[in-house]
């Protein structure tokens, strides 16, 4: 196999990996915030429901969750899903899983802000939502960025787990080519692709961290 064909195939797989990565972030970052609010809610039922959710998402392997999301509709509810559901299932599985992790990072950030700030804002006449958006959130974002970067980098490598429900992401492509060519070159190629992708993401996150380094 020509090197150019190998690179083309890996790039096609990479594109799928990047899609999984971007869509997961797009859904899980906001969803995580909602989950974090639920986790801190005064309503006991909601708070405990969210606690159970987070506990399940963090307590079971992502591979298993992906299989449940993909095969569940048929085997549990007997619903036939359209062909395109394979990819949708990956996004749902990843978003639900990562939202749980992001929620706990958000909660840690939000609870680290001294209660005095809430009281001061209340005295100054800020409403609860104004307090959160204008005072708390900007401080939370910069505090949690290093932890979020950690999760994001893990996510890039986790995209390879989509192979369990046969989504042609990069690692699956690399394995297929390696077995057809019976050599290790595709794996080396896959490693380089992942590393470059991670390097770019880490670089961007570092830049964002610098942008948020106010109040220091």
């Amino acid at each position, binding site marked *: 196999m020509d090197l150019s*064909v190998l690179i083309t*195939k890996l790039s096609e797989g990479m594109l799928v990996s990047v899609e999984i990565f971007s869509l997961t972030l797009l859904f899980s970052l906001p969803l995580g915030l909602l989950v974090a609010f*639920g986790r801190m809610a005064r309503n006991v039922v909601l708070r405990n429901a969210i606690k159970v959710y987070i506990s399940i998402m963090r307590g079971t392997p992502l591979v298993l969750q992906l299989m449940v999301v993909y095969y569940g509709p048929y085997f549990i509810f007997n619903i036939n*899903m359209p062909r395109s559901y394979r990819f*949708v299932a990956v996004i749902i599985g990843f978003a639900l899983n990562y939202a749980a992790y992001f929620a706990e990072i958000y909660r840690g950030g939000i609870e680290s802000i001294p209660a005095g700030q809430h009281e001061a804002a209340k005295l100054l006449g800020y409403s609860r939502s104004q307090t959160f958006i204008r005072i708390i959130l900007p401080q939370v974002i910069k505090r949690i960025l290093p932890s979020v970067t950690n999760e994001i980098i893990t996510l890039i490598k986790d995209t390879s787990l989509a192979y369990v429900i*046969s989504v042609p992401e990069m690692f699956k492509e690399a394995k297929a080519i390696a*077995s*057809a060519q019976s050599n290790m070159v595709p794996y080396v190629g896959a490693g380089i692709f992942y590393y470059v992708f991670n390097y770019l993401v880490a670089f961007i996150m570092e830049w964002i961290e610098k942008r948020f380094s106010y109040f220091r």
Partner: protein
Amino acid sequence: MKRITAIILVLLLMLSAAACSKGSKVTGTVVEGTLTVGFDQEFPPMGFVDDNGEFAGFDLDLAAEVAKRLDLKLELQPIAWDSKDFELESKNIDCIWNGFTINEREDSYTWTDPYMANTQVFVVRADSGISSLADLAGKTVMVQSDSSAEKALGKRTDLVESFGELLTAADYNSALMDLESGAVDAVAMDNIVASYHIEKKGAGFAILNEELAAEDYGVGFLLGNEALRDKVQAALEEMAKDGTLAKISNEWFGKDITTIGK
């Protein structure tokens, strides 16, 4: 808090709206007018990614010819081999067509007649000095998990007991990498695939003359889907009669090794 509950409800609704039912089943296929073939894309020469980066293989060529004769569009769906039953039962694919061994699985699928014969063999390093099953005593042997070679070994407990150790690998390619690196002494696998691999790689590996088991390849459908099976079976018989089957076999193996209609 009501607002948050409402948002969560809306999200759940969106998720469930993604669920809708599939097209009708006049032809017995899961998608009207399409034959969806599930295969393991790591299984050369039956189904794999070729030098141009396209899906290729003996079985896929057969499937393409059958689909043409049945006036169906062919869709190739690579699957994770461990999940083949889930894929079939949840109606994501019509059949498994991928050097699929009938033996020991007779009652789990609705099968066509066997279209070719295969043997399970042991692959060793050419310079290892192992030349018979007796030489495997005390050696480390590897087999792909959930493969027919593993099933065949399960029936030869005397042989397995003579091994030093029996390990399982996720796929046969990593087993062969272990063999090449010296981590294991022999790999039990399909003869057809082993031969392809040795040819591709050149010297270094050898196949023991003594076989582990003989078996047949067939096309597997969801249990009870006789309607589609009969159509595919008829097309295969027609191809055997007019020589197309022999022609495709010649292209891949240099001889006619098909068994249907003989």
